[in-house]
């Protein structure tokens, strides 16, 4: 069980995340939603151990993260929002780097890499540098890198970014399958339709705070909304979208 209690993060006086608490059990897919600047990415970076909280704690199996951070990160797979990758490496080289750093045995590593490249349809580009890959291709490499060591916890930050329709459908089923295999999945995305289909629980952040935390069905029922989009718009969107869109369209005309 991944438990987050009273998580707070401040950057130079600016409160990015304020008193966020939730839990994620094996087999659950917890969705993380929020507009830009809501503290979503900060929360994710704390969950992955890349940032340390100003206050609050994150525990894994009842034990605080920081004393066991190496052990925790060894069980974690992370797909970041921005595909920041060593672009001069080829896909197999990057996956070998990640797998080697995680101590995967050589033969096992090569077998897994070849299989991932085949399944993601990247095997014809195995000798091309990542700099020549499209955004979607790089995203596939990052997903493969995150799953290479069969992690117990999978954190996905905008994993569909750049993926084509077929790959997005594959990812949707992949997330469900990972949960069925007993993994803890944290899924952050702006694509509400996708979140609605794959997540068992949803957390909506707004200005660093949780404004909603429940299952999708309960949230829709509570807000009398037909979709998660309506729930999100009611809780986390400050502006009149129709008016803003209209003004944008006419800026250059006037």
């Amino acid at each position, binding site marked *: 069980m991944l438990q987050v209690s009273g998580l707070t993060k401040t950057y130079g006086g600016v409160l*990015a995340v304020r008193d966020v608490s939730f839990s994620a059990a094996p087999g659950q897919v917890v969705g993380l939603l929020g507009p830009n600047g809501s503290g979503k990415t900060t929360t994710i970076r704390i969950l992955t151990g890349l940032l340390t909280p100003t206050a609050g704690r994150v525990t894994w199996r009842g034990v605080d993260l920081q004393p066991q951070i190496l052990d925790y990160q060894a069980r974690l797979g992370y797909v970041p929002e921005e595909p920041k990758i060593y672009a*001069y490496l080829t896909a197999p080289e990057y996956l070998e780097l990640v797998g080697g750093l995680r101590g995967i045995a050589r033969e096992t590593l090569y077998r897994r890499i070849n299989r991932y490249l085949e399944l993601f349809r990247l095997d014809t580009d195995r000798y091309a540098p990542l700099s020549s890959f499209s955004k979607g291709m790089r995203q596939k490499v990052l997903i493969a890198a995150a799953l290479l060591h069969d992690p117990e916890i999978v954190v996905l930050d905008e994993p569909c970014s750049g993926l084509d329709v077929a790959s997005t459908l594959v990812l949707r089923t992949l997330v469900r399958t990972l949960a069925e295999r007993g993994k803890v999945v944290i899924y952050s995305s702006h694509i509400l339709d996708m979140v609605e289909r794959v997540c068992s629980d949803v957390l909506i952040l707004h200005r660093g705070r949780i404004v909603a935390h429940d299952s999708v069905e309960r949230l829709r029922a509570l807000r009398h909304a037909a979709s998660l989009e309506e729930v999100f718009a009611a809780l986390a969107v400050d502006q009149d979208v129709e008016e803003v869109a209209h003004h944008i369209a006419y800026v250059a005309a006037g």
Partner: protein
Amino acid sequence: MDAALASRETDATQFVLWATALVATLPFFWTIKMMGVYSFLARQPEVLQQVVIAHRLFFVLYAMLAAALLAAALWDALFPDRQDQEILGVLPVGAKTVAAARLTAALAVAAGFLAAVATPSALMYTVNVAAGFKSQALVGSWLGTLPGHLAAMLAAGMFTFGALLALRGLAVLCVGAEAAQRAAAALQLVTMILLLQVFIFLPTVVPALMRGLADPSSALATPPLWFLGLFAAFAGPPAARVPGLAAMGALAPAVTLAVAALVYLLPARLNARRALETRTMDRGSWSAGLIAAVSRGVLQAAATRAIFAFTLASLARSRRHALIIATYLGLGVAVGGVRLVAATARERPLGLEAPADHLLALPLVLTFFLVFGLRAAFAVPTDVDANWTFRMAQPSPRRVVHAVAAVLMLGAVLPVTTAWALVTTTLWNADRAAAAAAMHLASGWALVELAVVDCRAVPFTRAHAASPNTVRISWAWFLLALHVFAFRLDDLQLAAIGSSAGTAMYVAGMIVMAAAARAYRRWRRQPWSVHFDAPIDAAAETLNLSQATG
């Protein structure tokens, strides 16, 4: 600049200022050093005239070398890349307009750089000439010296800059972008190494050029002499003017710049299209396979192997880091060459048939500069934003050090040892050649173990401190280490090479030193973890993932 030497984390302004100041320093201090020489030589007019010509030639050659250095760093930036075309290609701006803008910017940078390099020495040299006013007929008019100095250095530099740009552009037209890119990368490295040799051996080049003045037809075919003529056209004295040289000096830059303009502007649309349509395929195939094979064969631990392969791949594919290493290699060749030249002056002819300290020092010097060149390159990140891969995996410090040591052995010690073994096999008998190679291998290993004592970071992953910290190097320690490693160990090797017992003792001594360094490292290591952030410095601007906002 980002394409060549500096990473995007560097403060560009500071980098440019520091680099320009560095290049301007040598001629300026050289001019101070020769203060009073003209007054001193006033009673020897023949000598004085030769000295004046030699000094002016030095400034001309220096400007040409500085411009060549700049061209090697900048020439890739003149061609559009995929990202440029994806942004600019959709805008209503012609390809020729963009190419013209790039070329104009490059020329402006070159002119500014050369002016900055030339001005301090021009001012100081004018003072020198004014101080030698009693011999004005021989040293020239001080009123004309300042414009002459500036004009000669600027014209020489712009001529060289334009010529190299034109050559690079022609290469792309003739052999295609990919082949030209590879040739340019090799040319860039070779240029860097050669430039350093010419810098160091400039005093021997100048007299050779001066001999060309005796033959007008030969002089007209020697570019540095054109600009000497231009210098003399402003500053005099009349005896130094050779017909036609000044005109060539004035025309040559215009011609090369015009050719460069044509070479870049005419095929601008073709180059732009190529940038988008050419896909970089299979560039990694041969190096990826080789790197994988080497890492599999050399190292067992998975994490060590991963870091080792990553380091090799980064070195093989980063032009920026290759230039850093080429610079150190060039310095090594120059320092070793100076030692040989000095030995030649003592013993004519230079004896190669028996071991001598100046011969044994050569591989030691090369290895020293390669090891520290690699260490310098490791400190410059390839992509700081991507180092989250290592932050997540947190490799153990022991694995990092093993990987770095393996790269240093493979990249510096083994190639030099192999080359040295081949050379000594042809020069000496097999026993001596084997002894020399064994001693050098042991020395290299000891140096590597000492060099990784303070290793704290995975190569290329650490946020890089701003340029003041970059330029600040512990020169004193570096020179001391070089002196001890290259110029004291050669004496020990010379004493040891005569007998197998001596060789064995030397090798054993180096092994003990390596083991001691390793033991010290292990004792010092606890507790520390691998570093990813830049050293703490109030003046530093760094990218630090742990402080990044969400």
